[in-house]
């Protein structure tokens, strides 16, 4: 079957295929170009090589079980996808998490946003030839992943943000690790600025290439850093504030010309603003209502179960290390009070009958979270733009339809119109500055 570009091509021009397995394709997309020498006359993009059937799979899983699938959508900023899905459900169910949980969510989301921008710019500059910048930014990303690993246990795909709050409280040493991550990231950003901002080679490759006007961007449905680089002021955190963003003070950087260099600068400045948000959240976060306890203190679980048959157990129970941070006395800080929508703490599940019933009714088939019938749309500010979830519920424990508003799709679909008129070597920085993530584009 022929493509549009093959049907429309002139006889004397050359058709070039930048195939799905290509170092600069950020995963797998295929760009077909019609060339006259090195100048591009026409372009067509083929995607769908990473279509993993996310939306169809979600119709067969319960609301709680499909949380790991949302991690793997925008895999460079995984906690933001989690947050978006969970907040959509909370809007439907009418739950509000406690304040400490909201601050923890903000800290994790902003660190994910910094990881997203670091990876996007690292890939962009590596493809332009600046390999040093790639190595520096990956080093900074390791420190941020250390912060996430200390609290959640995993470096990337965490499933940490749960319905009603978060999975576990922050680690007792979180302040030192966070401070180290922020300092190292600031050092790296300063070095990279010095290397690239006034570099003649980088400016020649990115200044005044692929200039986009604000009307064009709005007509194509662009959001996020790419829209802000054209000069339009739209940030979901300021327009429809969610979590505790209205209490924190941060700026939204805007670009002027809408070329590749502006998209790069907007991302660099946004990273600095995100680190500012994390520092403010570190100061304003409410103290935990109970101090962190060593897991080895307390009575043995088997004794507690035996004692609970006679009367209610009041002593502390020795829990296993992977339940650290989610003990019963911490639940007030990290989970909302809600019937039937949250997992009860493990001490309750094993020692009294109400906890056992709640646990049973949460996990068994045909019980569980059952939102009211209807549909809802909610969006958060993702790494590339407005990440929206549209859920249709029919009253059962599985979603009837779940749709993701992927910000990358709108930005990448405009590549076919921006590229003609430039040279082949301009495709690489342009495509890199759009920050295409395969998991989100193809779902």
């Amino acid at each position, binding site marked *: *079957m022929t493509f*549009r570009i093959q049907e429309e091509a002139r006889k004397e021009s050359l058709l070039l295929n930048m195939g799905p397995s290509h170092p600069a394709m950020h995963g797998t997309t295929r760009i077909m170009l019609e060339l006259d020498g090195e100048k591009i006359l026409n372009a067509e993009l083929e*995607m*769908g090589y990473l*279509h993993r*059937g996310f*939306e*169809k*799979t979600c119709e*067969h899983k319960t609301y709680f079980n499909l949380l790991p699938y949302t991690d793997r959508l925008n895999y460079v900023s995984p906690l933001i996808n989690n947050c978006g899905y969970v907040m959509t459900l909370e*809007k*439907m169910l009418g739950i509000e998490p406690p304040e400490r949980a909201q601050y923890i969510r903000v800290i994790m989301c902003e660190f994910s946003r910094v990881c997203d921008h670091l990876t996007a710019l690292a890939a962009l500059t590596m493809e332009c030839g600046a390999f040093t910048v790639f190595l520096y930014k990956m080093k900074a990303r390791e420190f941020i992943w250390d912060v996430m690993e200390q609290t959640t246990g995993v470096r990337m795909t965490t499933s940490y943000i749960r319905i009603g709050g978060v999975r576990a409280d922050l680690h007792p040493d979180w302040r030192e690790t966070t401070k180290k991550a922020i300092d190292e990231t600031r050092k790296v950003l300063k070095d990279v600025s010095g290397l690239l901002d006034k570099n003649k080679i980088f400016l020649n490759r990115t200044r005044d290439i692929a200039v986009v006007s604000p009307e064009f961007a*709005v*007509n*194509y*449905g662009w959001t996020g850093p790419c829209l802000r680089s054209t000069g*339009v002021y*739209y940030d979901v955190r300021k*327009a*429809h504030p969610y979590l505790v963003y209205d209490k924190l003070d941060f700026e939204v950087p805007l670009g002027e010309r809408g070329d590749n260099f502006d998209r790069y600068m907007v991302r660099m400045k946004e990273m600095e603003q995100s680190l500012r948000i994390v520092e403010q959240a570190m100061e304003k976060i409410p103290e935990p209502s109970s101090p962190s306890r060593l897991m080895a203190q307390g009575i043995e679980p088997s004794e507690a179960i035996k004692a609970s048959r006679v009367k209610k157990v009041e002593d502390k129970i020795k829990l296993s290390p992977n339940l650290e941070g989610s003990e019963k006395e911490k639940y007030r800080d990290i989970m909302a009070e809600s019937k039937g929508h949250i997992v009860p703490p493990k001490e309750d599940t094993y020692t009294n009958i109400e906890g056992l019933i709640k646990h049973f009714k949460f996990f068994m088939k045909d019980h569980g979270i059952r939102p009211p019938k*209807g*549909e*809802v*749309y909610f969006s958060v500010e993702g790494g590339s733009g*407005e990440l*929206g979830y*549209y859920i*249709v519920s029919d009253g059962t424990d599985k979603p*009837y*339809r779940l*749709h993701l*508003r992927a910000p990358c*799709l*709108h930005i990448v*679909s*405009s590549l076919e*119109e921006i590229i003609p008129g430039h040279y082949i070597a301009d495709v690489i920085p342009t495509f890199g500055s759009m920050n295409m993530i395969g998991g989100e584009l*193809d*779902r």
Partner: protein
Amino acid sequence: MEQKKVIEDLKKIFSEKIKEFSAQFGDETIVIEKDSLLDIVKFLKDKPYDFVMLLDLTCVDYKGQQDRFEMVYHLFSLSNNLRLRVKSRLPEKNPSIESLTSEWKNANWLEREVYDMFGIQFSGHPYLRRLFMYDGFEGHPLRKDYPLRKRQPKIQMRKEDDI
């Protein structure tokens, strides 16, 4: 410009074409006849309502009901900071609706996705082809009657004893 004023104006001018108004969970929604889509959209795009951005375009399959498919559009107004959801139902046999590519350019790929996943035709679309699935794939995966695990391999798989 407030959300209420937009709904009142729509009620006044398009009263016979809009079937239903609702606002569940705080999202304003209108359900319209499928033939009046372009008129309402052009009206909303002008000033002072200024719904200049098409946020999303998708479809839901209500199998078993009489009008099986429902198209859902999310519109957004940058200057007034307002969101609106526009819905329209389509029958099961030969579902088709007007394309929005003349108004918004990102409708091109979004409508291709809906065609690929549900099989809905868009009249006036310049290049209606599959977006996610490959040529030679039969069926439309997101419909409720397509089984989850029905695979149509593109190349031959190795035999069991070679693995």
